[in-house]
């Protein structure tokens, strides 16, 4: 039998709250520390304990990070999903299953490895048997695949950082799992792992924690937040790092308030922005829905503030622990009336950090609410990174007038007057005594006074439009990889970054054609996106939602001759994007267009 090295998918079916997450992270870390390109996807329920959880570990020499199309090795621990999981497997799949779960193994066309996981764990520590049983299957896998024991034990130490008892217990459980396979079972499959050159300095981090750190290096001063999956770990990351990074003379240089609801969280950061500070909230779609009224106020009164939306599946409560790009259109035109907002869209953890600080500069520069748009896949899964680049620009406070001298140098100052012709007015701060006005969400003239005059309102709305439009080429440019043929151009964004290389390969394999790609990183769209569209014969906009939200935005904004060549692939089922699924739809869209 030919060996299959570092190129397969392991699916681990467990129950939530049983400690399986630790075991799975140990497995992921071990493979990562062996230098094997690996990614992990946690498919967890909206539940604390008892409901089914799956963890997908994909090893891929090509560096594919999507979950893959099929399972090669199945770990069966959870009786609740046992039959369904088993039935879904293709013949020949390796199944490592817990003999003690008293569930039947009725497939004879799979490679079966029965292991008494609970018994082994119980012998070691009866009280913690349920937890330890998970590490037993990691040990079994280690022996089956040929994982390095030393690296495995280092990963266990990392996972239980400093807790000696837990480290020893789990290491022993892994050794027992290993020993059981070696003594009682015979390898009857072809999957193996081999160490590769370890990339120096690489580490795992979740997108949400990268955003948290970016925010801190961006000088966050006020965090107002309300817990909601999958964004809570952005706020919690900020809260855990702030005391270490932002304490001065033993005191806080920041304020954190857990608000009573999302409305209040939005109000707090707008209050902070109005007073002259950098305020941020992190939420998900349902939170943005609640914040809409306040977002309109910040847009209209021109108050800087930052909103991170870590997208989960909507509408309504939706699938709270699944991923989607379903909020993009909502963010872009948040709140009633005519509005338009700046949206930063990271696709990697490095960009989560980078945009984490850049959103503040953009928000103060344009005096407007700015959104960061991530999703559960990018936010809550662990991704490999080589490191983050320290901000290469000083903090930009925008057109802030702090002294009388500055004020005197401005010709015909008015809080909402377009003195420089770029749509961006100057502003003063409360407490400064400089041009005090009553900020308002009602119509106002260039000096901030209440007005319902038609021409005043019309001019104000035109200026606001000009202001946001003017941000296009200031915002992160798209990442473009162009093929020389310039036939098919795929436009995508956000966490689809982690699937795109696999999509490219599958499309090329199937239709013999290379595609160009353009990853949009911000709204309003950068001029390079339009240039990319001009160059290519066919444009396919690929996204993780039902309604083709970016495609819709582009159709609204681009000239007619570009619309003719635009195609859409929009698909969402809650899962992180799988390469084959999108690749096939891209091919179908192109072929259909050619008929």
């Amino acid at each position: 039998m030919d060996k299959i090295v570092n190129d397969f998918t392991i699916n681990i079916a467990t129950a939530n709250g049983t400690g399986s997450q630790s075991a799975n992270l140990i497995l992921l870390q071990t493979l990562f520390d062996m230098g094997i390109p690996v990614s992990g996807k946690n498919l967890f329920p909206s539940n604390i304990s008892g409901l089914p959880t799956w963890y997908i570990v994909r090893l891929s020499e090509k560096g594919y990070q999507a979950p893959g199309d099929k399972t090669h090795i199945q770990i069966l621990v959870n009786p609740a999903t046992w039959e369904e999981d088993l039935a879904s497997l293709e013949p020949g799949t390796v199944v490592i299953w817990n003999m003690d779960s008293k569930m039947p193994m009725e497939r004879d066309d799979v490679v079966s490895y029965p292991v008494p996981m609970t018994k082994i764990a119980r012998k070691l520590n009866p009280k913690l048997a349920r937890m330890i049983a998970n590490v037993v299957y990691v040990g079994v896998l280690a022996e089956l695949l040929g994982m390095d024991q030393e690296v495995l034990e280092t990963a266990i130490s990392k996972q239980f950082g400093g807790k000696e008892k837990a480290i020893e217990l789990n290491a022993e459980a892994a050794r027992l799992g290993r020993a059981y396979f070696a003594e009682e079972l015979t390898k009857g499959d072809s999957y193996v792992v081999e160490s590769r050159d370890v990339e120096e300095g690489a580490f795992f981090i979740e997108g949400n924690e990268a955003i948290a750190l970016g925010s801190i290096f961006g000088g966050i001063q006020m965090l107002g937040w309300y817990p909601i999956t999958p964004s809570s770990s952005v706020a919690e990351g900020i809260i855990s790092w702030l005391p270490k990074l932002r304490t001065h003379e033993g005191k806080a240089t920041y304020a954190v308030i857990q608000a009573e609801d999302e409305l209040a969280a939005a109000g707090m950061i707008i209050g902070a922005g109005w007073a002259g500070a950098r305020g941020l909230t992190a939420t998900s779609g349902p939170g943005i829905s609640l914040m809409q009224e306040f977002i309109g106020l910040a847009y209209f009164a021109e108050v800087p503030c930052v909103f991170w939306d870590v997208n989960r599946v909507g509408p309504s409560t939706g699938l709270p622990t699944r991923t989607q790009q379903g909020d993009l259109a909502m963010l872009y035109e948040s709140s009633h009336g005519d509005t338009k907002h700046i949206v930063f869209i990271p696709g990697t953890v490095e960009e989560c950090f980078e945009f984490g600080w850049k959103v503040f500069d953009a928000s103060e520069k344009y005096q407007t609410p700015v959104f960061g748009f991530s999703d559960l896949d990018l936010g809550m899964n662990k991704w490999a990174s080589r490191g983050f680049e320290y901000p290469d620009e000083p903090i930009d406070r925008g057109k802030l007038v702090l002294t009388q001298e500055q004020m005197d140098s401005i010709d015909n100052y008015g809080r909402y007057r377009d003195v420089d012709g770029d749509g961006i007015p100057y502003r003063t701060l409360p407490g400064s005594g400089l041009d005090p006005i009553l900020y308002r969400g009602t119509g106002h003239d260039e000096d901030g006074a209440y007005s319902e005059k038609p021409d005043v309102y019309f001019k104000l709305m035109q200026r606001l439009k000009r202001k946001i439009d003017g941000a296009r080429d200031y915002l992160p440019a798209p990442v473009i990889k162009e093929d020389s043929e310039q036939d098919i151009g795929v436009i995508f964004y956000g966490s689809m970054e982690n699937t795109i290389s696999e999509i490219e390969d599958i499309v090329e394999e199937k239709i013999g054609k290379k595609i160009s790609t353009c990853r949009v990183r911000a709204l309003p769209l950068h001029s390079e996106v339009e240039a990319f569209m001009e160059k290519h014969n066919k444009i396919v906009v690929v996204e993780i939602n039902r309604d083709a939200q970016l495609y819709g935005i582009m159709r609204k904004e681009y000239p007619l001759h570009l619309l003719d060549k635009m195609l859409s692939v929009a698909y969402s089922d809650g899962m992180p994007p799988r390469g084959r699924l999108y690749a096939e739809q891209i091919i179908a869209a192109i072929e259909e267009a050619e008929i």
Partner: protein
Amino acid sequence: MSEKRAKVVKLNIINEPKDSYTGGKSSLCPGCGHDQISNVIISAAWDNGLEPHKIAKMSGIGCSSKTPAYYLGRSHGFNTVHGRMPSVTTGANVVNKDLTYIGVSGDGDSASIGIGQLIHAIRRNVNMVYIVENNGVYGLTKGQYSATADVGSKKKKGPINETQPIDLCAMAINLGCSFVARSFSGSKKQLNALVKAAISHKGFALIDVISPCVTFNNNDESLRSYGYVKDNQAELHSVGYIPHFSPLEQVEVPAGSYRDVTLHDGSTMRLETISDDHDISDAVAALSALHKADEDKKHVTGILYFDGEKPSLDVDLDLHDTPLIEMGEDLLRPTAKQLDEVIASFRG
């Protein structure tokens, strides 16, 4: 001589004329109680010698929330969204704790759409003055009952109100609010003393001011008409205020019994007994006074409850003494070395 006298402009302790505290012309109905409250805010800020630019005037939406345009024209302000002024003030307050925050709101704002925000601002003890201009009706939408309308009261048009009202003072006392008072827009002297004391207090100061709506709720059958409130006010005490810059010993001692309460900035609130002595540190007594007044269809006024010791939000947050908005990049952005250390901790 008379010519010279005409030029004398009275100045306050920081040498500012009262004009420095006024605002634009009111567009409310002539005779509106809210305008009287605006005048009291102007006087109180002037009397207390606040620097006009160090005040932030905050409001929500409604007749009351329009009033910040009519006072303190030299202060920044924020007319926010309906009922959500407390959260905006909270955010501003923690990043610039050195301003005096005066929030004005109505009963629609405070007892209905924004009651949650009011509750949580009280709970956090945000350092601010929160004035409710309470008339029992929605004025700007033309006279619907609000959640504070008294049972048995009837507005100009429509049926008698049968729905139980929310008493914001009782609610605040139960929440542990550090300064709870009720007043009447027609009692200028009492209101003036209460607003000044509220400014001197560090923490959340709620003043629920009955402010009759002359257009929709000033008829004889209304329990919030000007005439009814004037005749049915039950004063807990007579409230006086002695600013910290006036030596207490030079103030005339009242003939009857009184008690002095020292406020955070060193000013004194002097409460003179009228009939029964009210202990402002006794929450149960305060609730009892409200309950009794309610039974008698009276409006109890004065300071109901006070706690000068409760730490305000900025203290709870352990903020640096320099307001956050005054901090520069050196304090706000950690160094490249710190980033390296963070990354090293991930590499493990």
